[in-house]
């Protein structure tokens, strides 16, 4: 099968679902396909996160996508299509909460983001490192203690 098929599909998915191509492009929906943090901030709602990221310990080390978006090609496009759809729609309809909160699904992606750089360092503290593997319902989540890693102190 054509190797570029999944890619093409994912992109189309994102664009078509994305509250109509017009709105989507105008809202720089395509920012979702760029790696430039500025691109995320094309939506003013995201600006404070760009600012806080710039003040965080990671601004010289990681960009939005490194933490929030899977690095493998297909999951990456699916993520972007999904969030592109959610965020564009909500941005257009203005029906998002005053204080944004990461969704469980994106929290998982975030965890993978951390591990993409800190996997070795944390090899001993994660279930994966256990001979028995994961024996409890959940593994340890980085953001529980390091919520400020990407955006500096919350307050």
């Amino acid at each position, binding site marked *: 099968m054509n190797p570029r098929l999944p890619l093409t599909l994912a992109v189309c998915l994102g664009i078509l679902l994305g509250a109509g191509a017009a709105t989507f492009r105008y809202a720089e929906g395509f920012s979702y396909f760029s790696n430039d943090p500025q691109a995320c901030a094309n939506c003013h709602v995201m600006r404070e996160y760009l600012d806080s990221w710039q003040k965080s310990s990671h601004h010289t080390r990681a960009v939005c996508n490194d933490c929030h978006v899977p690095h493998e090609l297909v999951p990456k496009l699916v993520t972007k299509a999904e969030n592109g759809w959610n965020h564009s729609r909500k941005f257009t309809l203005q029906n998002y909460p005053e204080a944004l909160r990461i969704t469980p699904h994106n929290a998982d992606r975030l965890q993978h983001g951390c591990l993409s750089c800190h996997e*070795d*360092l*944390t*090899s*001993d*503290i994660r*279930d994966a*490192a*256990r*001979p*028995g*593997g994961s*024996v*409890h*319902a*959940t*593994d*340890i989540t980085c953001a*529980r*203690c*390091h*919520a*400020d890693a990407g955006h*500096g*102190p919350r307050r």
Partner: protein
Amino acid sequence: NIAQRKVEAKQTHFELVKLTEDTVDPKLWGENFPSQYDGYRRTVDTERTRYGGSEAFSRLDADPRLKRIFAGYAFALEYTEDRGHAYSLRDQDSTARVRERPQPGSCLQCHASVIPAYRKAGGGDVMRGFEIVSAMPWVDARKLVEHPVACIDCHDPATMALRVTRPGFLNAYRGYMTTKGVADYDPNTMATRQEMRSFVCGQCHVEYYFRKPDQVVVYPWSRGLRIDDEEAHYDSLRFSDWVHAETGAGVLKAQHPEFEMWNQGVHARSGVACADCHMPYMRQGAIKISDHHVRSPLLNVDRACLVCHSFPAEEMKARAQTIQDRNAALLSRAEDALVGLFDAVKAAKTAGADSVALAAAGRLQRRAQFRAAYVNAENSMGFHAPQEAARILGEAIDYARQGEIEALRVARTRRP
């Protein structure tokens, strides 16, 4: 250099020793996990903090009122500040409460790596062995164990995963969960990993008593984990720890209810576990490990608090101490009130009042003593739940003073 650090990171632990359910000696576990073992061994350190730390000073000398408060109970003989896990068996061996008073084998559940001994005594059945050993005289039971709190008490030797082994906890928590509508709760299979990071501590850092007549260790959680629930449990059984020597009232003394107090605080509510503060992660070469030097977080504020609180270490320490200072002042008031009650009851007796006439005063003393002892025995000086600790002490003061008033009224009616 980087290359070498990377290698170090990949192969974290080598299995030099095969660990089994009978490997009790932490030294052997240390062969496989040297860094954690190093930390564990450092629990022999003795460093004091304003209200805690690891120097085993005498609490009775530090606060003479306690001698009167525990009058007639073993704690009036010797009561010291607690210290590291490495001492847990030694300190039990040497306390006057054991040397000068007969104690049951139950004492060992939380002071020794006792599970293999239970299994042996129970012919493979830990629960039965637990009951058998608890019923033995301490001196005989003591011969069955040789190590203090150690690796196997918190870890599964096969997977290194956390696990809960103490029958006292397993029984009591299962009972508690039924009050929440959950049947047959088993932490080892149903708890999240984050919950386990507190449950392993809750195995021992809890209020307990020995069921009569079989001396089995029970945690009074049938109604819930709050002090009021525990008191209700005791009242329903008409249970008393001892009869107060000065007043003749049947009273209660709480022991280290850290788990219960923590449960009432905002940290527990926010999912912050005991291990988060008492065993914070530390970097060792190219990997992160849990600091097994379990101790006062105030001796380790940088790692214990600052990942979550973005304020300077000095400031976070000051916040904890401000909380402790407030509770310490209230605790002192509560103990003064208790002493006032003792004097009033004794005066009433001299005035000719009998135990029947003083029954009401006795019931108030019981409420007051349990509350004051609860906060005193809870080793964080209220830090684990600042407002709850203050609330408990406010009630202790109220009940003690009401008891004193009651005794005065009784005395008056008795005056010739």
